[in-house]
């Protein structure tokens, strides 16, 4: 028995909302750039989960293909983002995003 027949789709909706909100909370709460990065990954995964759920419930494989692309983009994003973080750390000796406050006035 797959979950499709038993579990209503709303449950998956609420699950991904909660996961997404936890990601947002992480971004807001933490100051460590790496953890913020991970929170973003969490948000991406929440969306992925929702896509897969809809894909299955509607019997449409396009949603899963989309998830596939999101993974590719996430991998690229992580590679570049972490490289940038390395550079920042090398220059500032810190991974605190509050140091990066030159973007003003």
């Amino acid at each position, binding site marked *: 028995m797959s979950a*499709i027949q038993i*579990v209503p789709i709303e449950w998956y909706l609420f699950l991904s909302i909660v996961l997404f909100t*936890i990601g947002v909370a992480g971004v807001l709460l933490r100051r460590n750039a790496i953890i913020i990065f991970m929170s973003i990954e969490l948000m991406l995964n929440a969306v992925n989960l929702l896509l*897969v759920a809809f894909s299955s419930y509607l019997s449409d494989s396009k949603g899963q293909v989309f998830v*596939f692309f999101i993974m590719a983009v996430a991998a690229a994003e992580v590679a570049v983002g*972490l490289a940038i973080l390395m550079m920042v750390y090398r220059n500032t000796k810190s991974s605190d995003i509050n140091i990066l406050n030159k973007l003003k006035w």
Partner: protein
Amino acid sequence: MITKALFIFLTFLAIFFALRVVSTKNPIHSVLYLVLTFFAIAGHYILLNAQFLAVVHIIVYAGAIMVLFLFVIMLLNLNKETEPHKSVWLKSSAVVASGLLLVVLVGALRGAEAIQTTNTFNSNIGLIENLGMTLFNEFLLPFELASILLLAAMVGAVMLGKKSIK
């Protein structure tokens, strides 16, 4: 019933580990909790008949991306609880803001009409055969572009990671 129990169990795990990702002080622990969260989500994928995606998810996220995170933390030597504390006011406002977001999203979806799902489910769409057909027929161009994106990201990461860029 087992399916339902499995769903509730995996949901509980995913939310719990996600919260731990956000709340632990040590970045290493955060990464490990995130890996666990991804495993929980992979379980959900299997429940949703998306077996191939579940495997890819574990390979890409847990296997590649999170290892990258671990490497970076190791290189930056961040395994101590170095993060300075935010003020209580800032923390509470962050929690309130995210809570508000949750409430608004939930409220929005509760008000929405239920989607019409067909009763005849095709349980084979998550198989690699079906996905491959879609991917290489309908999404051939985006697929090739994604390879270029990955190449560009690789070059960019290498460029940025070099000791000195002038």
